């Protein structure tokens, strides 16, 4: 038991895990092609893993197992470092690397949540259409606009939504990079055409890990800046 514990809290184990995750993802980048590759971004990851044959997805199963071990290793290493160094070193130098680790753990947690609950739904709409979000909330498509340059090339497009059909004054204009968010859902415009009649392709996304990933990014960047500050203090000559 003691031997297992020593392995789990060792830096060497973490380094091997990092190397193996890199290898698994590298192999996966060559195997991920065809219909399965097209589907993976349109369904929750675990649903995809259940659907595809193991000879296509084994690298991802392997990467997940290695990441679980890496999470355990990170937690135990961080805990052990805090226990050993508490009171012997400054608070900033004690906390900075651990904040980076917290950021990493939140990234993994965000992916895990999204792997169970993410969803994408595509709908083609026209002016006057009244689609619904998956939770039943109804909205209406008030106008579809395509901006055409003088030489006839489309420059951009947008779609005006009446976000509450009972209150027609409440509007939102969506365009690429500017979705409309409602509750857990985001409505994105992917394409629009004026001919033969104004129509647009919308995507309704649910990304439940998004806020956790953002929290991870904040922790990570704070820890990272603290580490850089500490390093710049240590060797002013460099």
């Amino acid at each position, binding site marked *: 038991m003691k031997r297992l514990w020593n392995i789990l809290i060792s830096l*060497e184990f*973490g380094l091997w895990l*990092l190397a193996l995750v890199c290898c698994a*993802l590298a192999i996966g980048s060559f195997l991920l092609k065809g219909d399965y590759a097209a589907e993976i971004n349109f369904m929750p990851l675990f649903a995809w893993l259940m659907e595809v044959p193991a000879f296509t997805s084994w690298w991802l199963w392997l990467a997940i197992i290695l990441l679980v071990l890496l999470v355990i290793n990170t937690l135990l290493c961080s805990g052990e470092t805090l226990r050993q160094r508490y009171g012997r070193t400054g608070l900033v130098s004690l906390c900075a690397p651990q904040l980076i680790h917290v950021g990493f753990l939140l990234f993994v947690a965000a992916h895990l949540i999204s792997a169970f609950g993410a969803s994408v739904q595509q709908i083609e709409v026209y002016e006057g259409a009244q689609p619904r979000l998956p939770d039943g909330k109804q909205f209406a498509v008030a106008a579809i606009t395509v901006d055409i340059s003088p030489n006839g090339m489309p420059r951009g497009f947008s779609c005006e939504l009446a976000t509450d059909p009972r209150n027609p004054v409440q509007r939102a204009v969506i365009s*690429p*990079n500017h979705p409309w968010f409602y509750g857990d859902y985001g409505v994105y415009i992917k394409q629009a055409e004026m001919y033969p009649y104004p129509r647009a392709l919308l995507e309704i996304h649910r990304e439940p890990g*998004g806020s956790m990933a953002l929290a991870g990014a904040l922790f990570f*960047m704070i820890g990272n800046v603290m580490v850089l500050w500490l390093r710049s203090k240590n060797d002013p*000559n*460099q």
Partner: protein
Amino acid sequence: MKLLLISSICLFLFGSFSRVFLFAGLAAELTYVGMRGLAMGRLPLLGPHDTLLFFSASIALLALATSFSPILVGKRWFVTVSCFTAAFFALSALPFPVLNMPLPQILDTLWFEAHVVLAFFAYALFAVSATLCGGYLINKDRELLGLQFKVALIGWSFFSASMISGGIWGYFAWGTYWLWTAKELWTSILWLFYALFLHLRLKGSRYDALTHWLGILGFVITMFTYLGVSMLMKSSHSF
């Protein structure tokens, strides 16, 4: 305008023995990039011509900044290698067509620009780190150890910030901060690899040689992430 670019390549190649020529080459390259930016009203970051040039300028800029470290005083090989690297990528940009089209609406956001600029600064710092690793392996100069670690750490920080800004852009543009594509997989590999590289230093001096070989391997992975994925694999990130 291409004359400016050719003169910058000449300055890098024929003045590679001096930091003054590195500076002059960089100034000429930045003037070219700046003029293209002004002509188009946006940062020139689309297509292989612009990105290779931006990469070359980033290497020159960050190598120039690194060359002021007291540790590199009298070590002319560093400026020489950096000049040749910057010249190589600027030369590689020449055969590609110049794309003067307006920025597609999906790319017209500060998050995209931050994502790309930070990524190229990171790639350039990984190139500088690999140069220092090569210098250590040839000269066995232990003074380079601390410097290459700092350069790689700053590069990794830039890369992390690039991934975060890319995730935020992705969330607003595609509806998700992550897509399972070859480019994203290799981006993660590069990030995890440099995490490994930076942690390996904690193992002590026994691993110095391995660390420096990994520093060079890191640049190979960087190049595959940047160019290899675009040329060999299908990805939404391909230029």
